[in-house]
């Protein structure tokens, strides 16, 4: 198994990781083969939750300006992180 890749990304959409950006984020996570887990910037590995589950993403309640820690593991982990970062960095209405 490959090493996990990770990055911490600031949430740009005004609504936070909620509504349309959240749905786009979950879809993007599911579009990749890599296993993607997320948490708040302070969360340890054991607190990370499944990025491919809408209720899990909703449960985080991440707001605009806050940071999200994303950990991806698998062959397309880096591509997954790039795509997810794009979702979080795109202001609403521009995607």
């Amino acid at each position, binding site marked *: 198994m490959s090493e996990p890749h990770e990055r911490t990304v600031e949430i740009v959409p005004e609504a*936070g990781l*909620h*509504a*349309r950006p*959240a*749905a786009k984020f*979950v*879809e993007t996570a*599911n579009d990749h083969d890599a296993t993607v887990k997320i948490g*708040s910037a302070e969360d340890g590995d054991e607190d990370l939750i499944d990025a491919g*589950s*809408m*209720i*899990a993403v*909703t*449960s*985080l*309640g*991440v*707001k605009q300006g*806050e940071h999200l820690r994303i950990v991806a593991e698998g062959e397309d982990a880096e591509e997954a992180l790039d795509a997810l970062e794009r979702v979080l960095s795109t202001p609403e209405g521009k995607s």
Partner: protein
Amino acid sequence: MSSTITKEDIDELLPEEQISLEEPPTTKDACIEHLLDLIVTTGRVIDRERALEALLAREEQTTTGVGMGIGIPHAQTDAVERPSLAFTRSSAGVDFGSMDDEPAKLLFLILVPASGGEDHLEILSALSRALMHEEVRDGLYAAETPADVQSVLQEAVA
């Protein structure tokens, strides 16, 4: 990240009158109106039409069917005077167009005044956190009275 709702908040957000254990309508929009009417009945909604418009506008963006058999339609609107929840459950499930294709069986509605700032996201995330636990979902399926529903949620946020 977000402060949780407390045990005491449950009675205030979701009084027994805003919980219905009768079978709700079988379509998503009718179900949202049904949940809204539970809050209208307790006198907390100032403008029913405006509240409904806000809820349906939110569904237009993307469904509030969050998977795991759960639907949480919600809106932030001045048509409501204070943060309020409603709950019902459907044994057959209602098609919410959720990403996991599971029909929504546990249905919550959240209305928060437009001035409520971050209350809206905090209630939504606290509720979602609670509902991720299987024992909480099982408790809601098993509840026989509105008071049972309140207790399950109080336990879940405690």
